[in-house]
């Protein structure tokens, strides 16, 4: 296949998630149908309406040096863990890429909330002189991107898109543009989140956005199911290494998939509620398909954003139906991982890439009784077992509070 400077490929993958401490264990757990969701046992959670979280499977302290970890917010620790895995996986470090040509785009939805809230406790209890001098670098939303940049020695620009739950996907789109415009030769992209704390939990619960199925943790995240009642907060990070196809081929890198196109739109409808027919989401998918030079019938698989909220899932089903059609195999992997907010789009891109590479579509857990909604009924949502299939192109879409819509199109290597 001939390549042009617009062709961008994925040469490295990394993740630490509620299902596993790396990509291989996460993917294995996903296909095995395991759930990352559990009920909080902390005292503070006892009176909370929503007590479920998808906590990291692997403690970051076991993967990162203690002295390094104490200067990094938890969201930065997991970002670095995922990025270092992806970077090592890509082999790019040995390829002699000049540091001035390595860029980072790493998003987060919330930022260093644990540091902000933890240091506020210090301020209240001990006064201003006891607040850590690392408070600001640990809470700033560009902190994860900066920490990743330092970890891999990137000096070609470090960027931090912030678009709530679309942040991780937006980072990937941004990375694609940097390579197409020849701003860099290698870009580490991804998303991160770690905000399991009473305040974010209370805030999301106050929006009535979280599942309160506290007695059945593993069954709580149930996208597209009639009984869904909200999302489950997850934590973790995922990262990809992107390069132009020509330079990846020149260094003999293993290519896992092509990042063929991307689309971004805004709903312009409401600050948090999605457009009920998924109008903006459908436009994002359409834009990504045009960018990739593909038609809807080319798309074999969609990894849906599907967070398990009552209104979000039906709006997205309508968008997928109108922009892709009814033929594509749809997966909602948040049914097992929970919702990693700013990391979600990056993690689900990793899943989309692995689905393409391995030619297997993950199942949507807990989809016992699909919603009566016409679009949900019309879609081919894979459930019960992963499905082996032959397909060459797939879409991952992500949406964020604020009306942000991002769609990414990946194709086989």
């Amino acid at each position, binding site marked *: 296949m001939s390549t042009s400077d617009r062709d961008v490929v994925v040469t490295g993958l990394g993740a630490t998630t509620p299902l596993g401490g790396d990509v291989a264990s996460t993917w294995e757990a996903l296909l095995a149908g395991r759930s990352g969701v559990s009920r909080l046992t902390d005292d503070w959670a006892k009176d909370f309406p929503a007590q479920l979280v998808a906590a990291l499977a692997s403690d970051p302290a076991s993967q990162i*040096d*203690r*002295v390094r970890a*104490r200067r990094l917010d938890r969201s930065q620790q997991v970002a670095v863990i995922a990025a270092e895995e992806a970077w090592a996986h890509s082999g790019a470090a040995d390829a002699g890429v000049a540091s001035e040509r390595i860029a980072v785009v790493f998003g987060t939805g919330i930022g260093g909330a644990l540091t902000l809230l933890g240091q506020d406790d210090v301020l209240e209890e001990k006064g201003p*002189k*006891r607040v*850590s*001098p*690392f408070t600001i670098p640990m809470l700033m939303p560009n902190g994860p991107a900066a920490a990743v940049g330092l970890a891999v020695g990137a000096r070609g620009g470090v960027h931090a898109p912030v678009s709530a739950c679309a942040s991780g996907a937006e980072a990937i789109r941004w990375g694609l543009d940097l390579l197409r415009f020849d701003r860099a030769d290698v870009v580490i992209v991804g998303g991160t989140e770690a905000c399991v704390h009473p305040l974010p939990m209370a805030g999301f619960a106050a929006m009535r956005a979280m599942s309160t199925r506290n007695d059945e943790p593993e069954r709580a995240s149930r996208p597209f199911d009639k009984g869904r009642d909200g999302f489950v907060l997850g934590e973790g990070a995922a990262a990809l290494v992107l390069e132009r196809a020509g330079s990846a081929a020149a260094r003999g890198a293993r290519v896992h998939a092509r990042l063929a196109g991307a689309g971004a739109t805004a709903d312009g409808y409401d600050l948090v509620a999605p457009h009920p027919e998924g109008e903006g989401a459908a436009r994002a998918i359409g834009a990504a398909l045009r960018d990739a030079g593909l038609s809807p019938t080319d798309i074999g698989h969609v990894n849906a954003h599907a967070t398990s909220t009552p209104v979000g899932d039906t709006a997205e089903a309508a968008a997928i139906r109108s922009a892709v059609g009814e033929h594509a195999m749809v997966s909602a992997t948040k049914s097992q991982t929970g919702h990693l907010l700013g990391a979600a789009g990056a993690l689900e891109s990793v899943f989309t890439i692995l689905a393409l590479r391995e030619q297997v579509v993950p199942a949507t857990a807990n989809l016992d009784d699909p919603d009566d909604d016409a679009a949900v009924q019309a879609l081919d949502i894979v459930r019960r077992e992963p499905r082996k299939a032959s397909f060459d192109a797939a879409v991952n879409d992500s949406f964020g509070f604020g009306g942000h819509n991002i769609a990414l199109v990946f194709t086989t290597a």
Partner: protein
Amino acid sequence: MSEDIQAGLAEILEEVAGVAPADATPEKSFTEDLDVDSLSMVEIATAVEDKFGVAIPDDELANIKTVGDAISFIQKNQG
């Protein structure tokens, strides 16, 4: 006396900056030899106050270049 202070300081340096206790000797420069940056120096000053009851004002902190400087300052100001 100064040995006790050196040992206490070494504990702080290990906790805050990962410096091996054997490396925390008086002639060592915090920035040049032990790779302790300015934000970590602020943390070290706070830990010194907790451990030894000696507050290090910012203008004094700027003059503390070596482990030996810190030991002398603590010795001089301990009640």
